[in-house]
């Protein structure tokens, strides 16, 4: 627009109007159903709420209430579970995924079929995945029979009801669900590395493990970056698997509770024995989670940006 003016050309109003009309529908839908609710949720966290009705301005009161009992136990528990979930997925899903991707990469392009098999669970709904594994893992289910016949277990399989194991079972199911993602992203990343780099290392006598660690990994930083960021966002938004497999309370005894299931209970009235809705608390939790997600995501992207090897 400004360059046009400098050249003395008149502003092409019809063009701008046409462009605006084209952009408008998408912009209106996006603003109305995403930006507006998000912005008013952030703003609303500073107010007192009676049910779904907004009352007076209370500043940071809702936030303060989050950090005292009875909320504090739930909040810190859920946060800890999300942190475990993040690191569990980083190791179980992304670590194993890197190894699978490297093995597929070394075996060349005839491995598309295996890649498709590995990725298939990722197109399934977490509801289907959760329900399927819940059936497989019930006492007297398929996993129990398998462990019995392998002699690894006697008696009933009760890990989903066991507060030390349930969370890790969910993390493993989540990794099963999304394993194809790191495999695809890492294979795509490995194929972008120049073949000469691998040949030179091989001529120097480096083994496959060493090549992966010292040659490939430093060049895979962009892949690692996007996977770490995606994993962070997804694990801190974790809700579906918990809801389907363990219920909205994160059974047993809140052992699988996450920040979003806690948020959901506060917002939609399933917290506590009588089902209390506490919108103020829910919005404060949502705002904190929003800030956490934004700050850490930007931080992660910056961190990896500086470590990207440029050729």
């Amino acid at each position: 627009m400004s360059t046009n003016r400098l050249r003395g050309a008149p502003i092409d109003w019809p063009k701008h109007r046409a462009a605006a009309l084209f952009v408008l529908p998408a912009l209106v839908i996006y603003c109305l159903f995403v930006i507006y609710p998000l912005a008013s949720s952030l703003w609303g966290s500073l107010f007192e709420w009676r049910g779904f009705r907004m009352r007076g301005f209370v500043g940071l009161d809702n936030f303060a209430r989050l950090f005292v009992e009875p909320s504090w136990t739930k909040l810190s528990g859920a946060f800890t579970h999300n942190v475990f979930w993040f690191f569990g997925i980083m190791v179980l899903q992304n670590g194993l995924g890197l190894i699978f991707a490297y093995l597929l990469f070394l075996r060349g392009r005839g491995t598309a079929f295996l890649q498709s098999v590995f990725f298939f669970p990722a197109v399934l709904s977490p509801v289907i995945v959760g329900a399927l594994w819940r059936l497989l893992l019930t006492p007297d289910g398929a996993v129990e029979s398998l462990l019995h016949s392998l002699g690894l277990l006697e008696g009933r399989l009760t890990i989903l009801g066991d507060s030390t194991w349930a969370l890790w079972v969910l993390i493993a199911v989540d990794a099963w669900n999304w394993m194809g993602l790191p495999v695809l992203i890492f294979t795509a990343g490995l194929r972008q590395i120049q073949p000469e780099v691998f040949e030179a290392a091989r001529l120097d006598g480096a083994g496959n493990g060493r090549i992966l660690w010292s040659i490939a990994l430093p060049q895979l930083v962009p892949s690692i970056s996007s996977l770490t960021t995606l994993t962070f966002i997804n694990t801190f938004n974790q809700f579906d698997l918990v809801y389907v497999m363990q219920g909205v309370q994160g059974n047993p005894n809140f052992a699988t509770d996450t920040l979003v299931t806690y948020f959901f209970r506060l917002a939609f009235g399933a917290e506590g024995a009588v089902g209390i809705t506490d919108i103020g608390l829910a919005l404060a939790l949502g705002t904190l989670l929003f800030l956490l997600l934004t700050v850490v995501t930007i931080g992660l992207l910056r961190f990896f940006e500086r470590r990207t090897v440029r050729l």
Partner: protein
Amino acid sequence: MTNLDVAQRIRQLPGWIVLALWALVVAVPLYILIVSCFKTTAEIYGDKFGLPTSWTLDNFANAWTQAQFARYMWNSFAVTGGAVILTLVVSAMAAFPLSRYQLGWSSPVLAFFLAGVMLPIRLASVELFTLMKTLDLLDSRLGLIFVYSAIRIPFAVFILANFMRVLPKELEEAARLDGAKEWRILFRIILPTIKPAVAIVAIFTAIAVWNDFFFPLIFIFDDDYKTVPLAITTFIGQFRTDWGMVVAALAISMMPVLVMYLLLARQIREGVGATGGLK
């Protein structure tokens, strides 16, 4: 085959075993799900891994009629189809001028859209619920279509704009000189040339919408409007002992995605490799 080849094969063997093991870990649960659909509930409890002694379609029939899966499938198809079409049309319209006109204001608008790719919209569900109530869009397929489109628009605009930007200018100049309208240029010339991008957006939107149960969970109360994933969550509790019907319901609900995956596995793999994800 020389000795070197043989040695090479043998050295690759452990790796192949690892890969085959994971393929089994993926395939066996799905295999159990599929064969269980054709067994009676008694047999599902008895023999988990074998093929059915007598194949039965009763489970499908029960799920389809007794549990009303026909209705839930229709709701899911309507919502998914509607969301894919709405997302594609409005995103293509927005991406077109933003990527191909000299406007001076397109970068900030694109950045504003792009920010939406990462926004945790679930955290806004309280205010979204109030909004839907005000607009009378609770218990409504149309309401779900709007919300899903709003969530998928950022990704769609981003992908479509990136593909449109690199097209040669001559593509539409000739048509414009012939007096073609802008919407005609977009839908008749630009979009057909970027079919791969349109396909990626359509596939990813369809999968994300088909699979979601969070928004139906908070917006849908009437059984008439439930989508498949939401129906399943209520279903597992309700028919917990009737495993035959539950597995049949799971199998039915994954069928459309399975068919799509068998047809489009390569596009989906390449799309994920290039754009970074489905979620």
